[in-house]
């Protein structure tokens, strides 16, 4: 981890102000993701943590600041170009193509890499055997957990250089949460992909993360190692932010 801190960040948001249409959600947010690390963004509902990921993926209006990725300024890049450059984004909701089969979903994930699809998809199937079993059914018929696995799987087919995961545990049964977090840990370990993780499940997120930053009302407020963070810290931040922690 000390090693990761000395390296230049692979992804950096500098003083980013962004939102949707006329609404501004993020104000002057700064995030640095270093090679090999898992950085978790914590925050209450409406704090803008999902917007950090959407802004990185290219789905919001950026009003100020800059985003650099792998040495390039991608602030003005369209979403598809960011994906092509290696940003793998897993949305919280609507994260699969509901009216396509599981196999077709995976093909869409490999849109930019059709030639190596047959080989790459086996890696996804190895990570999520259930997805292989269900490959002929419509994604809309999958359970919440299977859908989450599919959404991570189809993002991996991009061969991303970073993963942006938006609340991978939300709306899942506890056993499913276990297997999703195991998969995330395994992806991080085996593929050594740096991960920017947004979570509401504080304990889970702290256990997995190398670093944590907390977002309060669209501004980042804390950036330190998970071991340093006490429950009181978090509690204080959420209350100070005037946002309920529920």
């Amino acid at each position, binding site marked *: 981890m000390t090693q990761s801190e000395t390296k230049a960040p692979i992804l950096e948001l500098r003083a980013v102000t962004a939102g949707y249409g006329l609404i501004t959600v993020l104000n002057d947010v700064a995030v640095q993701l270093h090679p090999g690390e898992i950085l978790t963004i914590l925050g209450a509902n409406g704090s803008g943590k999902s917007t950090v990921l959407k802004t990185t993926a290219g789905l919001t209006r950026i009003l100020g600041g800059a985003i650099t990725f792998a040495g390039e300024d991608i602030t003005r890049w*369209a979403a*598809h170009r960011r994906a*092509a450059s290696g*940003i793998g984004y897993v*949305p919280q909701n*609507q994260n699969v193509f509901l009216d396509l089969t599981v196999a077709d979903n995976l093909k*869409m994930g490999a*849109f930019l890499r059709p030639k190596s699809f047959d080989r790459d998809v086996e890696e996804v199937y190895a990570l999520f055997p259930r997805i292989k079993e269900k490959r002929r059914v419509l994604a809309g018929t999958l359970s919440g957990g299977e859908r989450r696995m599919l959404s991570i799987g189809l993002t991996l087919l991009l061969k991303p250089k970073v993963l942006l995961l938006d609340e991978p545990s939300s709306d899942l049964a506890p056993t499913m949460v276990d297997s999703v977090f195991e998969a995330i840990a395994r992806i991080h370990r085996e593929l050594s992909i740096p991960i920017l993780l947004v979570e509401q499940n504080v304990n889970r997120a702290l256990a997995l993360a190398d670093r944590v930053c907390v977002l309060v009302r669209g501004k980042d407020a804390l950036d330190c190692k998970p071991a340093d963070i006490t429950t009181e810290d978090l509690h204080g931040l959420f209350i100070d932010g005037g946002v309920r922690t529920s």
Partner: protein
Amino acid sequence: MIQVFVNSIIYASEIAIVAVGISLAYSILRFANFAHIQFAVVGGYATYVATELGLPLILAVPASAVFVGGLAVVVDILVFSRLRHISPEGKMIVSWGVALLIRAIVASIFGGGSIIIETNTTPIRFAGAIFTSLDVIVVSATVAFMVLLHAFLYRTRTGSGLRALASNYDLAVTRGIPGERMIRLMWFISGAYAAIGGSLIALETRLQPNMDLIILLPVFAAVTIGGLSNVFGAVLGALFLSLAQNFIISIDFGSLVSDQSWFVPSQFRDYVAVLALVLVLLLRPSMTKRGAN
């Protein structure tokens, strides 16, 4: 009865090829483009101009399709691309404005009179029904273009990309599918198909500035019955609608209750379209909800 069926197939072909473009645009951009009807009208006039310039029909219609496909792309660049983030209702109203502008331009160039594109057609008598060689061309062209569109959407990588954008736009672009470029391509196809449909209608009937009003209702009814964003649902919608319209006006309602024959006047054909539309929406609410997701 066979004659009514044959008439329905011919009419459905003309409507369907126009209707698919509306569904295609709706499936990705989620608004009903009223200017689409004008694309069909412009297509009819463009084919007329091309034949006047000496092109045979077999080349005039493709030339018209390319021209109107390009027009649809230009309209997107000038108007719709700037309004991507406004509400669907807003875009729909703007599309009305675009439609009226195109209508005014067409009328100012070609005047209010009707124009007939000369064709050599021979009547064909088959299985008790009478139709023309032109009807055969209209139906087979429609079938061929539908097969082509299906193959494009389901058998090519680009077509799959379009379907992905229609299914979930944000997810598709973050998979690396170039959304804006694909939207341009979609507009080109949509405009080209409208032009082909408009040309076929112009050949079957005649060109007149108000032909938009004649096809507006059946086309939109077909698209709505088909579930708005379902491209091939629009084809089925057109077929269903056409059958309903042609059968209603061919039934002798008078003889059912008295010894005098009475038919629904054919002017009411479009109201049958509305009635069929309302019935379908009442009976199958799930069909239209699917598109709204």
